[in-house]
């Protein structure tokens, strides 16, 4: 049995179960749906572990392959392939989901079943996005994951949630339409040349395209991914969405949803249109640097904790863009490392911000005051992840940033210097946050606050460990998460039977 469809479908089914469990009446424990989610995630982890550790049997770069015709008239098939990149990103998703489940979603009491269903549905969409190698299926999942996320933000978010949710949806959906155009353009171009209507990227990657056309198509893809990543001129949705989303949704957004943008750029921009991507690289790198500086600068000006973290994400994602378009394997790997590290670190920061909001009912740093005295554990964690986010060597972010900078330096030292300068405001916003929330004089009239219990600390401790391992011993992850080239198909033997 092939594990890939199970990976996608399992969260969905678990979600439905959770919903049903949430709607059950009295005798059932209200947290049943939570347990269902936990069980689902555990099974998912088991399957993923199986995939991870049993892949030695295959020799090729693609670990698993699954294919099933879907809409034969259009040449569309449910084609899922897994390589190291998608595997590592799925691992990241699962880890963050565990983080959410342990630290954030249990607090949701209003319509918990529905919340968990939407949560898992988002996860399913994200995993599908990471696995799909059929452009239509990819686009399907790409759009699919927006809907539950929209509802999560709009229904469970904070005060200005609905505007934020609308903004989020409009931006991502609108850019998705551009991608749709590009997908169809590519498919039709292939069709015109060969007479074969297919959405299979392995086949489409071989399409000979004129430079102008490939640039156009690449731009379509790029726009969609740029909005998701986000790249600076189109980042507008992100601060609002991150700020207003409930904690779990913020974690998913920052931790994984943004990564789908990076993932898409690697797989669909750089690998599908290598020439156009290399011609576009200077602009993309410029945008990346702009993102680094602009995001960091704006982050320094925020008073809202979650907003600050959100802008810092923009800054970090600038490095990802820079790395992807630096045109070397090193930059690509740096970008992947940065994605993983940013996913872990920022997610943890959002969890902490969410915990603060749960306790103090404010996100305004002026009104939070020093928490170290009241909540040393939470504050310690906050300090650690803030430091990670400013790019402390030895932690995951630095590995990514350094590789990206190195790759960029090979291309253009000036760009790399500018990007490196972005690390100074990074220190400013991170430490500003630390000194206004954690290490500051406690505000008068603070209610007695409950610190993180030990099990929460254990979960966050795991994230910490991951970050440290990523920072000090990234070698296995690095070799593991290399994206496989599209010229090699996983499934030559599977296609023929």
């Amino acid at each position, binding site marked *: 049995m092939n594990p890939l469809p199970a990976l996608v479908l399992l969260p969905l089914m678990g979600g439905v179960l959770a919903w049903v469990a949430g709607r059950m009446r009295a005798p059932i424990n209200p947290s049943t749906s939570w347990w269902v989610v936990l069980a689902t995630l555990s099974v998912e982890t088991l399957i993923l572990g199986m995939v991870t550790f049993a892949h030695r049997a295959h020799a090729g770069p693609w670990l698993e392959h699954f294919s099933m015709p879907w809409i034969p008239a259009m040449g569309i098939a449910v084609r899922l392939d897994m390589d190291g990149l998608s595997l590592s990103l799925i691992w990241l998703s699962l880890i963050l989901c565990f983080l959410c489940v342990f630290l954030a979603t249990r607090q949701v009491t209003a319509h918990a079943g529905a919340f968990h269903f939407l949560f898992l549905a988002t996860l399913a969409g994200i995993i599908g996005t990471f696995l799909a190698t059929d452009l239509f299926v990819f686009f399907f999942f790409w759009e699919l994951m927006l809907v539950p996320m929209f509802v999560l933000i709009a229904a469970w978010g904070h005060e200005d949630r609905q505007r934020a949710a609308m*903004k989020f949806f409009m931006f991502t959906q609108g850019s998705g339409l551009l991608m749709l155009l590009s997908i169809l353009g590519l498919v039709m171009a292939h069709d015109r040349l060969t007479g074969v209507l297919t959405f299979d990227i392995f086949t489409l990657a071989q399409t000979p395209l004129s430079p102008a056309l490939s640039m156009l198509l690449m731009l379509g893809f790029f726009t969609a991914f740029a909005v998701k990543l986000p790249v*600076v*001129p189109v*980042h*507008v949705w992100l*601060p609002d969405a991150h700020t207003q989303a409930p904690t779990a949704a913020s974690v998913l957004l920052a931790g994984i949803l943004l990564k789908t943008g990076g993932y898409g750029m690697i797989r669909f921009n750089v690998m599908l249109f290598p020439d156009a991507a290399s011609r576009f690289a200077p602009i993309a790198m410029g945008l990346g640097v702009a993102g680094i500086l602009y995001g960091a*600068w*704006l982050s*320094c*000006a925020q008073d809202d904790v979650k907003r600050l973290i959100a802008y810092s994400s923009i800054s970090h994602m600038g490095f990802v863009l820079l790395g992807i378009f630096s045109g*070397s*394997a*090193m930059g690509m*790997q740096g970008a992947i490392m940065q994605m993983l590290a940013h996913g872990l670190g920022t997610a943890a920061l959002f969890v902490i911000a969410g915990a603060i909001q749960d306790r103090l009912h404010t996100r305004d740093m002026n009104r939070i005051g*020093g928490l*170290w005295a009241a909540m*040393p554990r939470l504050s*310690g964690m906050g300090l650690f992840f803030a*430091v990670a986010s400013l790019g*402390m*060597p*030895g932690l995951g972010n630095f*590995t990514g940033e*350094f*590789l990206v*900078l*190195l790759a960029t*330096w*090979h291309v253009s*030292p000036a760009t*790399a*210097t500018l990007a*490196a*300068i972005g*690390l*100074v405001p990074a*220190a*400013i916003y991170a*430490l*500003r946050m630390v*000194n206004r929330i954690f*290490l*500051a*004089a406690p505000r008068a009239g603070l209610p007695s606050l409950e610190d993180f219990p030990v099990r929460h600390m254990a979960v966050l401790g795991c994230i910490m460990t991951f970050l440290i391992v990523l920072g*000090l*011993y*990234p*070698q296995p992850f*690095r070799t593991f998460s290399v994206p496989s080239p599209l010229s090699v198909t996983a499934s030559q033997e599977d296609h023929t039977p």
Partner: protein
Amino acid sequence: MATFLIPILILCPLAASLITFVSAGRMDARGIGMVACAGVGISAVISIILSVMLLSGPVTGVLQVTLWPWMHMPGFSADIAFMLDRVSMLMILVVTVVGLLIHIYAASYMYHDPGIARFFACMTLFVAAMLVLVLASDLLCLFIGWEGVGLCSYLLIGFWYDDPANTVAARKAFYMTRMGDVALLCGLLLLVTATGGSLRIGTVLAAVANGQLAPSGINMAALFILVAALAKSAQIPFQTWLPDAMAGPTPTSALIHAATMVTAGVYLIARLHDLFAMAVPVMALTAVLGALTLLMGACTALVQSDLKRILAWSTISQLGYMFLALGCGVWQAALFHLMTHAFFKALLFLTAGAIIMRAHHEQDIFRLGGLRHTMPGLTAAFVAGASSLAGLPLVTAGFYSKEMILSGVWSAHFNLTHGWTLSGPPLWGMALLGAFLTALYIFRCVFIVFCGKAGTGAAGRTSRLMSIPLGCLCILSLCGGVIEMPDTLLPLHLFSGLLDPTAVLSHTHQPAWLVMAGAGAPLAGLGVAWVLWGRSSPVMREIPGQAPVICPVRTGRGMDALYHYAFVQPFCLLAWLTRLDILNHAVTGTGLLIQTASARIFRARADFLGRLAIQATRMIRWAGHLLGLLHNGRVRWYAAWIAGGLCAGLAMAVLS
């Protein structure tokens, strides 16, 4: 053996840090202190063992440990790798031994502080990071320690976070050094690009020696690294953070902001001296900046009234000496001075801390006074440290190290491009002036604090735990210098022989009066200080005014008038000048400007791109509204549209 010991050496303080952090609130203060001291103590013992091993090995022997590959990929590789050679041996000894003494002191000093666990966690973490910094054989690995010590410094400066001023100071320190870090990062990127993918110090230096780098590349790399070192060591133009950093607890100031972290810049340049040797303009720049810094630091220290700030400025000034030495190519002298400076400055800080503690946290020297009687032990220790700092001839360690620098500077010569040259004697003159000023300000402090009328009453007594380290440091700062002597006195070159047995420094060709001058300047400074502040009715034992105060000439007191014109007036002028502290203002002003600009721009209209999006939405809504107005519900109007559409359609179809 070494492969085993070196990781342990680093792990010990790290483990102590983790234990103290995790045990916050569960372990009592004594236990925490013991754990921390044990961690640092074990590493001190190990470092001594390692030194013995190294010294017993061949002369050029190096202990190498590669723990695991960090990043290996085509075009770049970095390892978590350590290397113990003689330079790093010196450094680990300083770090662990001085660190141990300071930890022991701090265990008592911080005993009653509720945040002691956090304090020791940071302190031990700092030791670990510093050890990584000095032991790393890979520049990227060094960078871990480099940033790590910065972080610990930040945490410790802002240790008493209740006062916003402290946290501001902490952040200032971090930001300033962060700029340097960015420069260092750029330098590393440049080097790794040039050397083809490795940052091993050996590889880098070999590449430099082989001429793989273009001269401009070398200059750029050296410049980047110099900026990093300047920032870390609080040299011009980054000097402003260090005095503010005195907001931290005194042991922190002693360990981080005097003995070890601020010398990391010196260490880095000394480590890469082969690279710098090829970059003559950068060397000249280093020397000039060092000389300027040492003068400026000394002058500023002369007019400070806060005990710890005096010491902080003096640290800047002494680091200036080291940079001067580095710039002149006598890196051994810089390291020597680094070591002695670690001893006496730690001593001074610790003593100051003890004094302040007993004097009810009074730091203003003008409110102290007459402590000679109440705290004789501390007085002795402070005087020992002060004389070593001033470099009183023969009996202090500071004299020998300073002498080594001075003689090195004298014979320096820079061939800059386009025929410009810079030779040593002017720099030497500045250094000598600095020596005079050093003695002047430190003894000003000594006389004001310890002589005269009693100021604030003292309470309690210095605990034994605090006095032991003081004693040890006293001995070290007085006698630690005899291992290297000027040729004029005795051709003893143990230290430079230790560092680099192949190239022992000797300045036999220099005139003997150089040594005399070097010995005389501090003495002169001491004398002037005695005249000004030490006599029973001191002229200037009051707080200098804010504005240039020209004291009225007191009639009938010829000697006084002479003093007045010779010293008081220049002093007041100096006070006025340094109080303006133009550089400090410039740097702070720039920071403030950026801050206000960002606040102005982004607080007022947050994220103008977001505004743009909102405007676009508004336009679309407006269009919709306008269109809605057409739907006024009138049938005739609707029919007119149909007719118009028919009209247009016919026209399009027929006329096309």
